[in-house]
């Protein structure tokens, strides 16, 4: 009899635990950075995943039915916006999730490279609303966190205070670590750098780096031999020592530039590797640690 009672209690405990797990607010994000910040702000009350992976190009994510079914079960979807994650619209639409709270995290961002004239494909893959890689400026982390807090509070009002407290904690942590990152990259202040794609304009602005040129002649367009030759001259004349390349682009052109000019190639993903609470901040640790030696 006692045994039966024990089994019942264990079963009840399991059910209670399962209910507690399922009570978490489920959050989907377009990129791991937004997901990581959601993990920080949501704490133990959220379950988070990202559709794009750190090592994949966030401009192109395949719209798979399995993503739609995942999104059909979430309460909040965090979008980058600025036309980066247009693929997310098809996933959201296919999910048929009518209760989904879709939060565009670009609101309130000081958008860079906003085109002023006519935008068409002759300019390459230009985003008409401006450069969308804003999460690479740590000063924009708190802006994203405020969007996350707003969306989570709407989905789960009873934990709104917790989300507000976690947002504050995140902002403080971000500011504290930002000081350290700035100190470590002080030697690079004003230095000319080359980047493959225009993913790093927010990062460059944040740390006073000067982007002297891109491996791509236009955004999204692979380099020609003539463009590489011009870039070699620019690297030499600007004395650029750092070339940042996203790993999903081919290595051959950056390696060619390195051989011709001695520029050092740094391969960083533009997004953090995981969706844990500290992963967004750790990503800057990795980039800063990699670049710190280049300042000397």
């Amino acid at each position, binding site marked *: 009899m006692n045994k039966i009672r024990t089994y019942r209690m264990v079963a009840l405990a399991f059910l209670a635990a399962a209910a507690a797990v399922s009570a978490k607010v489920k959050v989907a994000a377009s990129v791991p950075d937004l997901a990581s910040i959601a993990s920080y702000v949501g704490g133990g009350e959220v379950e988070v995943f990202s559709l794009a*992976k750190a090592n*994949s*190009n966030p401009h*192109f994510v*395949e719209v*798979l*039915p*399995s993503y*739609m*079914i*995942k999104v*059909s079960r979430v309460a909040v979807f965090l979008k980058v916006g600025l036309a980066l994650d247009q693929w997310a619209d098809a996933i959201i*639409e*296919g*999910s*048929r999730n*009518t209760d989904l709270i879709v939060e565009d995290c670009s609101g309130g961002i000081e958008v860079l490279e906003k085109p002023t004239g006519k935008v068409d*494909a002759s300019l390459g*893959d230009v985003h008409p609303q401006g450069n969308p890689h804003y999460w690479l400026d740590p000063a924009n982390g708190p802006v994203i966190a405020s969007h996350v807090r707003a969306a989570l509070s709407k989905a789960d009002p009873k934990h709104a205070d917790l989300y507000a407290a976690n947002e504050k904690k995140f902002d403080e942590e971000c500011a504290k670590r930002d000081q350290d990152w700035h100190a470590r990259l002080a030697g690079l202040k004003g230095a000319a750098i080359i980047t493959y794609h225009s993913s790093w304009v927010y990062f460059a602005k944040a740390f006073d780096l000067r982007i002297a040129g891109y491996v791509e002649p236009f955004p*999204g*367009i*692979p380099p020609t031999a003539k463009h590489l030759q011009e870039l070699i001259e620019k690297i030499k004349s600007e004395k650029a020592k750092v070339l940042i390349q996203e*790993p*999903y682009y*081919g290595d051959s052109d950056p390696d060619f530039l390195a051989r011709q000019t001695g520029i050092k190639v740094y391969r960083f993903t533009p997004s953090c590797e995981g969706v844990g609470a500290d992963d967004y901040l750790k990503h800057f640790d990795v980039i800063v640690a990699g670049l710190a030696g280049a300042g000397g």
Partner: protein
Amino acid sequence: MRSWLYTGAALCAACLFRPAVAGVTNPDLSALGQVLGGWTNDPASPDKEDPTLKLGEAEFVLDAALNPYVKGWFTLSGGPDGIGIEEAYASVFRGLPWGLAMKAGKYRLPFGKINPTHPHALPFIDPPRSVQSLLFGEECFNETAVEVSDLLPTPGDWASTLTADVIEGKSFHEGQAGTRLGGLGRWANDFLLGEKGALETGISGATGVDSLGPDTRTWLAGADVKAKFYLEGASQLTLQAEGIFKHSHTGGQAEDRMGIYAFGDYRYHTRWNGGFLLEQWQREGDTDRNDRAARAFLGYAVLEESTLLRLAYERFLPDGGNAYDTVTLQLLFSMGPHKAHQF
């Protein structure tokens, strides 16, 4: 059947005849063109062993949200013979009960993997001959229809979609005056293979009458599987196969025949792709004969997805006849958001 149609009509009406609050809808406009060069030693071709150059079929696509619940889509295709409506449909993607989605209009029917896909989105130039032979030729299985689909409740990343269409049925009795409705169903299941791939399996079935005179019915059944593997960099490997069975009536005689194709496509760093396709099918009107074809294909995105160069070599082996070769070179260019191929 009638009550089902009434229910569908009521659901449509509930969504479509809401107060007009959607405001202005500016459709996305896209155009796709193609230039085709070719050479063949097909004895039946008037251009046997002479190189050819021609403008292929062009496509004009207009699509837009009509309101927060409904999207509209038009595909006009045209060539030297004029312009026709290839697709024109509205789809209700939100707001229906039980997570249902609806679609009504003329569109490429969801039978298998090749039929619903526009040829410019395939990794090769022409659809497999086996599919063309069993699914109503070059024009494919494309009809006026009403569709309801549902995402079934499934655990984990498994996505299971059930689709049912009531179709005009014209493809089954082409050229005859009048129509008799037909039906189509598909059950597709998609799985993520971790972060490194995705698997899709599907079964499809369709039916309609061959003739408005004697009640002869065609049955179509198909099974398909597609696996995609994401490799280092932006490279990926796609393996796909599809088998189709058709029971129909030719010259007053019942006929059962089958066809199957399989292909592998390797996409290297988004700009290059190449692969092989093998297929076999029973000939219409002479099911003892099994025709076969093998092709190799190569594609190159000149700068990005809006301009594609594609090359195909095919060896066609008609059962009991002489094999012949065909080489096709295609330049495919597109403007607007509906690109030739998704990178």
